[in-house]
């Protein structure tokens, strides 16, 4: 998702290559990646002692792009969270933006982790379902929760998610929602149900996300299927509905983050989109709207995990504890404008005043209890079920 900058919408800010944009363009230059993941894993680490065996007590956090309060291109950003963490703890931190796509990153680390070799970073921030996969495969360390007392500040619904029922292997980084994005100048009205996406009036003008869990998730919820205990059999009607939409020409295309352009250009009347992008878009184009469908939206979140063989578990715990302090978390939220997993951030933002205070009132950053109640997160898919889901989804998207 693109960073939302409510106060300063500018054409260039939309051009920022964002975390989700990479989802869309994933695998572009990756044909070779699959063949030489280990090679690439080696390439992606900087030459500076990033290797797990480097011996010093540097902490290495590998994250998505534009996902912390630091200026693009700078190593830390003076006064930002990374900088102040180093000053407060004396713990040196190395922050990289090596994650472009969950599957791509998995392909990169899989050959090493499956042989019990360390991958380098001490913390990685994959999305909850991928975090669940790593947990199931036994490729992540148990978190030293006793050294992270601030985890008590976390929003309850994000602490023991279905992807990590004991809450011992992952902690949330930032969260967001998927719902319906629409262009009023094409639709002529606000949309608020998944059925609107299948309205024949919009034939050939509907977009869906390549992110299977968001697309199938929303459709399934509209059919009354709950996401907590997913099985392929139970979800078959959702796949059927999607396939019907593709076959009839109702659905035009499956996209990554590039739906933002299609929506703005009017090539899409409506699509499934991510809350964050749409706030930013609507700031410059009032025709763009976003709604959580009546039947509910999906809640996704990225997590912090410690891969097995990480050399600095202590430092990782120290970092997690630091960012779960509402004062520090608020600074990150003010910049990245996602749903923060930490309670008390809203109050801290109000205290900060200005743009940050305005953010405190945004429904998409701080959804109220009634909105939250309609959101659902995906439960864990076991290996075979997930393979079935992915294969069926691929068939429908043409792959």
């Amino acid at each position, binding site marked *: 998702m693109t960073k939302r900058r409510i106060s300063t919408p500018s054409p260039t800010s939309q051009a920022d290559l964002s975390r989700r944009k990479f989802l869309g363009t994933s695998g572009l230059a990756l044909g070779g990646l699959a063949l030489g993941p280990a090679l690439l894993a080696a390439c992606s680490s900087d030459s500076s002692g990033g290797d797990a065996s480097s011996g010093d007590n540097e902490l290495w956090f590998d994250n998505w792009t534009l996902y912390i309060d630091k200026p693009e291109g700078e190593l830390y950003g003076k006064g930002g969270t990374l900088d102040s963490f180093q000053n407060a703890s004396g713990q040196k931190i190395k922050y990289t933006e090596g994650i472009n796509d969950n599957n791509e990153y998995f392909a990169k680390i899989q050959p090493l982790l499956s042989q019990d070799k360390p991958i380098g970073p001490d913390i990685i921030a994959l999305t909850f379902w991928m975090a669940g996969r790593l947990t199931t495969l036994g490729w992540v360390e148990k978190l030293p929760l006793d050294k992270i007392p601030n985890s008590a500040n976390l929003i309850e619904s994000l602490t023991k998610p279905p992807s990590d029922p004991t809450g011992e292997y992952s902690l949330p980084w930032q969260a967001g929602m998927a719902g319906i994005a629409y262009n009023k100048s094409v639709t002529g009205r606000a949309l608020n149900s998944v059925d609107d996406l299948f309205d024949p009036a919009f034939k050939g*003008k509907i977009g869906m996300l390549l992110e299977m869990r968001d697309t199938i998730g929303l459709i399934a919820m509209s059919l009354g299927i709950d996401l907590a205990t997913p099985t392929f059999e139970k979800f078959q009607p959702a796949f059927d509905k999607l396939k019907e939409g593709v076959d009839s020409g109702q659905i*035009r295309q499956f996209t990554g983050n590039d739906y933002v*352009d299609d929506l703005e*250009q*009017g090539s899409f009347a409506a699509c499934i989109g991510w809350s964050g992008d749409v706030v930013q878009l609507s700031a410059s184009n009032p025709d763009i709207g976003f709604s959580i469908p009546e039947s509910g939206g999906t809640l996704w979140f990225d997590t912090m995990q410690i891969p097995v063989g990480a050399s600095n578990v202590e430092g990782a715990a120290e970092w997690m504890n630091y960012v779960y302090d509402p004062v520090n978390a608020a600074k990150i939220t003010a910049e990245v404008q996602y749903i923060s997993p930490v309670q008390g951030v809203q109050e801290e933002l109000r205290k900060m005043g200005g743009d940050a205070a305005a953010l405190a009132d945004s429904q998409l950053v701080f959804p109220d209890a009634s909105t939250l109640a309609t959101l659902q997160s995906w439960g864990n898919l076991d290996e075979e079920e*997930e*393979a079935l889901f992915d294969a069926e989804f*691929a068939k429908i*998207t043409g*792959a």
Partner: protein
Amino acid sequence: MAADTSSDDRGLRKGKWAPYGLLSPGILWLVLFFLVPVMILVRTALSSKASRFANPEFSWQFSNFTSAFTDYGPQFVRSFLFAGIATISAILIGYPLAYWIATQGGRWKNLLIGLVVVPFFTSYLIRTIAWTSLLKDDGVILNVIHAIPFVPQDFRLLATPAGVIGGLTYNFLSFMILPIYVSLEKIDFRLTEAAADLYGTPWQAFKKVVLPLSMPGVFAGSLLVFIPAAGDYLNNRYLGSPKTSMIGTVVQDKFLVQFDYPVAAALSLVLMAIITTMVLIYSKFLGTEGLAV
């Protein structure tokens, strides 16, 4: 004197190995980045996986190839159809342009050829995404088309086969223009005067003299366009729809989303085999001297 002779001897002896020495970077390159990967690909294509995230184990799993053939027929057909149409379109657009530059370019020739190449300084991905803005439903191009009588109101180019083929043609066009230009540039155009002296019309002169002499360029250009176009998936990703997916789409998804490395490898090998066969047949008809342009 004696010292001189012996150094000559050494020179001669060295000379025997010199061709191999000169070839070694190329051979090393081919072995490392072609032969070894292809061998790994063959091995992977004949492997099976104990579980989804396990590493593939070699097991003579020929069924990967049958599933490559049976499950993805439409994508294969589309790949070759789209790539074929894109190649022909590129010839139709590229040949006249190259011909004009070669014959009328004069002292601007190099500049004009430079202009052909300039768009390709931009990334392939960016160029393709730029097409989504050009062809958008209420964009300039579509508005002009909709102004034509009898064009249906829901006519569009994005998310259609035409969009994908257009993208393929555009993206690989310069690979067609450059070799054709090179072969046309070498032609002594006094030959067309000779043809005229022999009562040939300009059209006959072109058909019987210029076109045959420029065929090596057309041949090379066709290969350079067809081969990458057949394996492409990016144009379908941005300009196509689920109904226009090509084999590259499947390979990408199999590799990076479904982790089905064996079938993905089998698909890649089948694609390579079909392309190689087609190129051999094509060169049989057009002659391989084209490759020596």
